[in-house]
């Protein structure tokens, strides 16, 4: 693969839950606990996992909306935390976020011109007719007519609003785009349009995507590599085709089995793996594998002790001995 663009190492993000009288944190929520991740130029890395697994927090930390508790994020070889204020501002233009919710992420009192142009206005990068031109150009690129410039977000549909979000993210010419569930709030019919748009824009501007989603079929469609996240950690990382064909982590297998199959004739084969709902308490993570409590392959004594490393793209002590079923096997 080509050059490294972003390297996340041993990243931890913890949120204070309770403080004592002196204001010291006594209970913390471990949203991201020790993530290592590398993004290469021009690729699309899918990040999947169930709700609350920390994938959104990871994305927000990368764009700078959230401060990491510890660990480092190297962008183009430089640690983002070491940068001066000015350099940080510049790096913000290179890493942009596309929001999940196309409704609350657009200020209802601002016109599209103000919303899309804001990143340029806030830093004084463009003004007057140049600003106007760049906004119109960006709107055309994402498939919005520049005639809509003076309209407010309330007169647009979810798909159009997501186009506005994309336009706002791309107007400063970023290299890396963190797309946080960009199509989850959209109708199935609109999803494909937005995914195609993202793919076109990637080819046109040479973008790198970190594509966060809980929807495995969407990720299969767009990603080159997929990282599966569980309970603040990456449990499996592999090329998309490989992962979907032969998962090596029982959690990935469970996720695959939950994907709905469109063809009724193929249903009922393979069988779904039903997980008990209990997630471990994020304020006091268990030792060993966090998934052990829900895993049907878990062995006491092997899975619930020590620290399990990510080896060969899998964080499972039994990965070598298990034969797990992927999505491709199920539908073929």
């Amino acid at each position, binding site marked *: 693969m080509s050059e490294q663009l972003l390297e996340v190492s041993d990243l931890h993000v913890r949120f204070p839950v309770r403080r004592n009288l002196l204001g010291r944190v006594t209970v913390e929520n471990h949203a991201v606990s020790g993530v290592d991740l590398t993004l290469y130029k021009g690729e699309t890395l899918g990040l999947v996992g169930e709700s609350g697994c920390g994938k959104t927090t990871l994305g927000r930390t990368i*764009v*700078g*909306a959230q401060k990491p508790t510890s660990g480092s994020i190297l962008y183009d070889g430089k640690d983002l935390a070491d940068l001066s204020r000015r350099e940080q*501002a510049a790096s*913000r*233009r290179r890493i*942009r*976020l596309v*929001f*999940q*919710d196309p409704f*609350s*992420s*657009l*200020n*209802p*009192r*601002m*016109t599209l011109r103000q919303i899309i142009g*804001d*990143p340029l206005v*806030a*830093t004084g990068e463009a003004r007057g007719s140049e600003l106007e031109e760049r906004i119109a150009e960006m709107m055309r690129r994402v498939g919005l007519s520049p005639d809509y410039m*003076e*309209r*407010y977000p*309330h*007169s647009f549909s979810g798909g159009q609003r997501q186009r506005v979000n994309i336009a*706002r993210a791309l107007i400063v010419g970023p290299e890396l785009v963190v797309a946080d569930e960009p199509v989850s709030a959209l109708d199935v019919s609109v999803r494909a349009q937005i995914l195609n748009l993202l793919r076109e824009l990637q080819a046109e501007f040479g973008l790198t995507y970190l594509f966060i989603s809980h929807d495995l079929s969407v990720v299969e469609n767009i990603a080159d590599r997929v990282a599966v996240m569980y309970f603040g950690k990456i449990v499996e990382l592999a090329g998309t085709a490989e992962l979907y064909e032969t998962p090596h982590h029982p959690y990935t297998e469970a996720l695959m089995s939950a994907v709905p199959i469109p063809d009724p004739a193929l249903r009922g084969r393979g069988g779904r793996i039903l997980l008990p709902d209990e997630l471990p308490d994020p304020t006091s993570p268990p030792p060993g594998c966090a998934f052990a409590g829900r895993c049907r392959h878990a062995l006491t004594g092997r899975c619930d002790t020590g620290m399990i490393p990510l080896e060969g793209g899998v964080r499972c002590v039994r990965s070598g001995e298990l034969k797990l079923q992927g999505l491709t096997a199920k539908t073929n």
Partner: protein
Amino acid sequence: MSVTVDTRPTASQRQLVWWAFKKHRLALISAWLLAFMFFVIALCEFLAPFDDRHRDSAYTTAPPQVLKLWDTDGEEGFRWGLHVDGYTSTQDPESLRISYEADPDDRVEVGFFVKGEEYELFGLIPMERHFMGPHDPEDPMYLMGTTTDGQDLFSQLIYATRVSASVGVIGVLLAFILGIVLGAISGYFGGWADNGIQRVIELIMAVPAIPLWLGLTAALPVEMNPLTRYFIITTLLALVAWTGLAREVRGRFLAMRSEEFVTSARLDGSSHGRVMFRHMLPSFSSHIIAALSLSIPTMILAETALSWLGMGLRPPVVSWGVQLQDASKWSVLSGAPWLLIPGLCVVIVVLAFNFVGDGLRDAADPYKH
């Protein structure tokens, strides 16, 4: 066929508010009334027949005169001409109270744009014409009667309107700047800034307002320049009045802080100040304007009460409260009910501000309907 363009999708917030406001009849009338009031305030020296220092000791507590267009009892019988009847005064030998009667034979000619006392319009243009007044400035023309000092109540009322309304408006503006800035900081940043500001607000709210004002104004030296006193009183009123708004603004910021568009504004490279006042504040600016017009009456009433108690503004500055001091004795008021006219003015203006505020508040959220 004419082509009608639907302007709704591109209508700005301001237009939507205006469309909704127009439907509120009472608020619209009140708005015109207030517009008229501000017109009077601006042209106060020109509109008042006499200036606010004018004093005629020959006519103290004289009743209002009726403006007449013609008279029938002159030497030539019926004749046209704007005039008022002069007074004849008689003194009661026992109570020594002077009572006035209109004297039809003593005709005081009244005209428009007459020469009177010199003044400077807007403090700049020297003029001596008044909108309306007696041809001879020495003649009495007291459309609302006179005060116990022999001052023209009508002229005084015009000057008092300027003082009272401007105390209200300037005071509220000061209070709003304080309230919005501190409330925004409190809600946006949270943490110790929020804690500190909220405790200060609670402290101010815990102290009863009127005694606090009384205490503060009583501490002002009596011989202070009236203009300085006016500004200090206004500031004192504002220092107490900002707390309610600060809390409201804080609540709004707190609720909005976690919205995605705020995060997005930060990521776009906006400074905290720009996020607060460009991205967040406009979301409820119409509510703020409504709250603004709803709190002007409180300010006007506070000033009136303070001045009436003798702790606020003092003569020679006239405000409605100062004027009403005259009406605080029953013995005076029973013989001169017109001294209550400033009170009527207070009621009308306070109601008008309230109606406009109500109308704006209802109109502020066009998407609700």
